[in-house]
């Protein structure tokens, strides 16, 4: 990946990024243990709605895919389906140390260790688990990144689709299903 820090956006993209930064709708992929940190972030103690963030019901409606913790190879398939259903510009946030390097599951046969081999992660929030303070801090960073046009993971995914696809297939393996729907 070649890092290009020049701002090549035109005026419309800048305006669009302003709207995107101030209205972040999230799809929480809550199979990991980090999901438990989201309710206090959402409710009256930390209240993420004041930054324009909120949960949405389906990936189609969402801007951010929030992966809350470890991913088993089985759920990875569903995460990829969910990500590919989202409309660009779309962002991925890895949450907790499990998405960075596997965390305490680093030697498990059933989980993936590094999320950004399979999906373009724009932001990691480290911790096991990150407390709501860390989450709010992390999302402030994401908002700044979107405003500056630095959160380009979705574009990177389009440009390097072959590389991601290869990693995804290697991890998932081939699934052959014998039933009336698949033959």
């Amino acid at each position, binding site marked *: 990946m070649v890092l290009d820090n020049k701002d090549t956006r035109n005026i419309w993209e800048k305006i669009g990024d302003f*709207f995107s930064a101030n209205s972040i709708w999230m799809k929480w992929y809550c199979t990991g243990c980090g999901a438990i940190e989201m309710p206090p972030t959402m409710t*009256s103690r930390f209240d993420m709605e*004041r930054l324009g963030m909120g949960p949405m*019901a389906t990936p189609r409606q969402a801007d951010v895919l929030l992966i809350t913790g470890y991913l088993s190879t089985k759920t990875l398939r569903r995460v990829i389906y969910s990500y590919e259903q989202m409309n660009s510009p779309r962002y991925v946030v890895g949450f907790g140390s499990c998405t960075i390097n596997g965390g305490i599951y680093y030697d498990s046969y059933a989980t993936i260790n590094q999320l950004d081999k399979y999906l373009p992660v724009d932001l990691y929030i480290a911790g096991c688990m990150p407390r709501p303070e860390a989450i709010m801090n992390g999302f402030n960073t994401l908002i700044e990144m979107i405003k500056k046009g630095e959160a380009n993971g979705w574009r990177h995914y389009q440009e390097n689709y072959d590389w991601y696809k290869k990693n995804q297939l290697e991890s998932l393996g081939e699934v052959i299903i014998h039933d009336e729907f698949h033959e």
Partner: protein
Amino acid sequence: MGALNFLYAFLMLLLVFIFQTTLTGLNRKVTARLQKRYGARWYQQFLDIFKALRKDSTSHGWVFDFGVIMALGGIMATVTFIPVAGFRAFPGTDNVFVISYLLAVGMLGMAMSAAGSGNPWASIGVGRALTNMLAYDIPLMVVIFTMIFAFDSASVGQLAEMQQGMGILGWNFFRMPLGGIVAVIALLGMLGKKPFDSFIAPAEIASGPMVEYGGKHLGFMFILHEFMTFIEVSLIINLFFGGGATIWEYMLKYAILYTFTNIISGVMPRFKIDQAVKYFYRVPLAMAIIQGLVVIFTGLGVTIWF
């Protein structure tokens, strides 16, 4: 009817959009305060809509795309027929029946589009939305027909003007108290507020009809929702709360009624769809029929206060 009327209609659409979207944003803050939160910025709803319009969007075929346009067109057309404080973009067309039929174009467009997405949650949501419509419409229509019978007019603007000039007791809400209560309950159902929001239930059926919408489609649906809210609240304001002698009075009444529905919504749990139908057919329908009988056989309500 000339070019000027169409200019008025266009301006009206623009102002309605700005007014209602601002009010929705303020009401998000009201809901947040009920939950002891700080809440979103007052212009958050604008940011959300423009963000959605900015995104790419996935199509699920011709029916899906066309339904959105048909619904938005139908609803925007309906908005231009609503009389606001004596102002009518197209004079002489503000009939209750015209408005309810045009509203159906929008509703059915939405149903068609959602069903066209092919998602089972969307079909369940549409089914529930139409069941809900059948539930609240019958008590409301009984009350509105009673009113048309009593005052001998089906024009929304005329019905509003008849209530003016007699103070607060001239409002149909106080002349026909049972009917007024039915109308406010039906308004909760129309707006999809709790306890009658089972058709969008986000955690149960993944926001129902909206499940496959994203990006620009979702932006259009949000705009449509603002216009639809305006039509529904305006109907109740005009028919039961005396419309408004001035635009400011109208806007004040509108804001109070809409905020009231949101406050109710903020403290209520959710009915299942069959519970909602049973409730509407038991309590509000009985109240509406009693109100109708009282008006028809005793004349109370038409002449009681003066």
